[in-house]
C-alpha cells in the first residue's frame, strides 16, 4: 500500500511523455506537433523528479520549455504558409517496417525481464543542487569553462548570421 500512490503518479507522467511524444510524431498539423512537445518536456521533467534529480528537472523545464520550444514555435509560425502544408508522408513498405519494429521490441522486452536489477533500498532523497555546484566548480571545472566558451561562440555566430545584411542593397 505504501508505494501505491507514487507508482500511480509515475505511470501518469510516463503516459504523458509517451502519448505527447506520439502526438509530436504523428500529428498532421505541424503547429499541434510543436505545442504537444510542451507536454513531452513536462513529462520528462516529472520523470527526473522520480529519479531524485530535482535540479535537473528544473533545468529541463527552464531550458527546454522556456527556450528551445519558444524558438521552435517562432520558427514554425514565421515560415510562410506553414499551416496548409501536409507533413504526413504516405505509407511505404508497411510490412517490412512492422517486422523490424516487432523484433526490436521483443529484444528490448527480453533484456528488461532477463537482467537482475539490484533493488537498492529506498535511499533518503539527498539534495543534488549543492553537490552539482561543488563538482562543477572543482573536479569538472575545465569542461564547464570549455562549454561556456562554446556557447559564447554559438551566441556570437547566431547574432552575426541573423543580423540583417544591409550592405547587400536590400534597402532599395
Amino acid at each position, binding site marked *: *500500500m*505504501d*508505494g*501505491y*500512490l*507514487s507508482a500511480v503518479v509515475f505511470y501518469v507522467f510516463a503516459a504523458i511523455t509517451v502519448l505527447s511524444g506520439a502526438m509530436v510524431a504523428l500529428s498532421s498539423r505541424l*503547429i*499541434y506537433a510543436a*505545442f504537444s512537445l*510542451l507536454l513531452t518536456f513536462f513529462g520528462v521533467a516529472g520523470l527526473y523528479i522520480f529519479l531524485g534529480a*530535482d*535540479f535537473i*528537472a*528544473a*533545468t529541463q*523545464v*527552464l531550458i527546454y*520549455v*522556456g*527556450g528551445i*520550444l*519558444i524558438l521552435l*514555435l*517562432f520558427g514554425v*509560425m514565421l515560415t510562410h504558409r506553414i499551416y496548409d502544408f501536409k507533413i504526413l508522408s504516405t505509407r511505404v513498405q508497411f510490412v517490412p517496417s512492422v517486422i523490424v519494429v516487432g523484433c526490436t521490441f521483443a529484444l528490448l522486452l527480453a533484456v528488461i525481464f532477463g537482467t537482475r536489477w539490484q533493488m537498492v533500498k529506498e535511499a533518503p532523497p539527498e*539534495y*543534488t*543542487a*549543492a553537490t552539482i555546484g561543488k563538482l562543477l566548480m572543482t573536479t569538472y571545472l575545465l569542461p564547464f569553462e570549455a562549454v561556456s566558451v562554446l556557447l559564447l561562440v554559438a551566441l556570437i555566430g547566431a547574432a552575426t548570421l541573423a543580423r540583417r545584411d544591409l550592405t547587400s542593397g536590400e534597402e532599395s
Partner: protein
Amino acid sequence: MQALAQYLIQTFGLPVPLSVLSPLLGFMGGVVVLTAIAVQAMYLIWLERKVAAHMQDRLGPMLVGGWHGWAQSLADGIKLLLKEDIVPAAADRPLFLLAPLVVFVGSFAAFVCLPFGDRVIISDLNVGIFYIIAVTSFVVIGIIMAGWGSNNKWALFGAMRSAAQIVSYEIPVGLSLLAAVMAAGSLSMQEIVAAQDGGIHRWFAFRNPFLFVAFVIYFLASLSEVNRTPFDIPEAESELVAGYHTEYSGMRFSFFFLAEYANMFAVAAIAATLFLGGWQAPWGGGAPIFGVIWVIAKAHFLVFVQMWLRWTLPRLRVDQLMYIGWKVLTPFAFACIVGTGAWMLVFKQG
C-alpha cells in the same frame, strides 16, 4: 507538508499511513492557496481601480456592495462568468481553448514554494527559486498559443512581441536572483529567509549596495515579465488594440485577467522573500502567525508600487524595451553578481 503530516499522525494517531497523508495534505494545501490567490487577485483588481482613481483625481468604484464598492470585482467576476464565451470561427479551436489554461497554470504553479511563515509553505523544494523561474516560462507558451490560436493579425503581433520580451527579460531576473542566492548560500526559499534573520539591516536588499541594485533590477525586470507598464507592449491598446487576448471574452478572458494579477502578486512575493526578508519582522524573529502578515504586507507594498508605476509612466517602444533588457539590465545584473561575490570574500558574510 511532510513535517505537518508527521505532526498530525503523532498527536492525533491517525490510522492513515504517512505516504498517503502528505500528498493529500499537499493537495488540500494547493486548493487553499488557489482560492486564497484567486480572492487575492480579485482584491488586487479592486485595489488597482481605487489606486488609479485616486491618482487621477476621481473616486473609482463606490456603489457595488457598500463601503467604497468593495464587491466590485466580485460583480465583474460573475458578469464575466455569465458572459457569452465567443470562439471566433476561423480560430484554431484546441489552441484557442487551451491557451488560458496554460497561462493560468504557469502563474499559479509559482505559489508552491512561496513561504508565508515559519512552517507555512506548501512544499519547501530544495531548488525553490530555480523551480519558480522555470515554471513561469509556461506563461510564454500560453501567450503564443493564444496569439496563434485566435487567428488574428493583431493578436499574433502581440504574442510575438510578448514572447520576445519575456524571454529576453528572464535573463536579468535570473541573474539578479542569483546575486541574492549567492548571499544566502541555498536555493531553498526557507533557508534564504532564514539567512536574512536578525533585523532590517540583515535583509538582503540592505545588506550591501550590490544587492540593493540587484533588488531594483529584479523589480524592473519582473515588471516586464508580468507585462506591466512601462513594459506593457503586448497589449499596447493604442497600437495592437488588445494584444494576444483580443479575441477572448467571458470566462476565458477572466482567466487571463486573473492570471495577470496572480502573476503580479507572485512576482512581488518573490521579491519580498528574497530581498526584503520574507516573513521576518523588521526587528528580527517573527512568530508564524505574524510572519504571514509580514509577507503579505511587503508583497502588497511592492504591488502598490507596480500600480503606481502603471498610472504615471507612459509605455516604451519595442526596440527601447529590448535595448534596456539586453544592454542595461543584464550587464548591471552581472556586475551585481561580481560585486556580491567580492563583498562576501572581503567581509566573510553575505
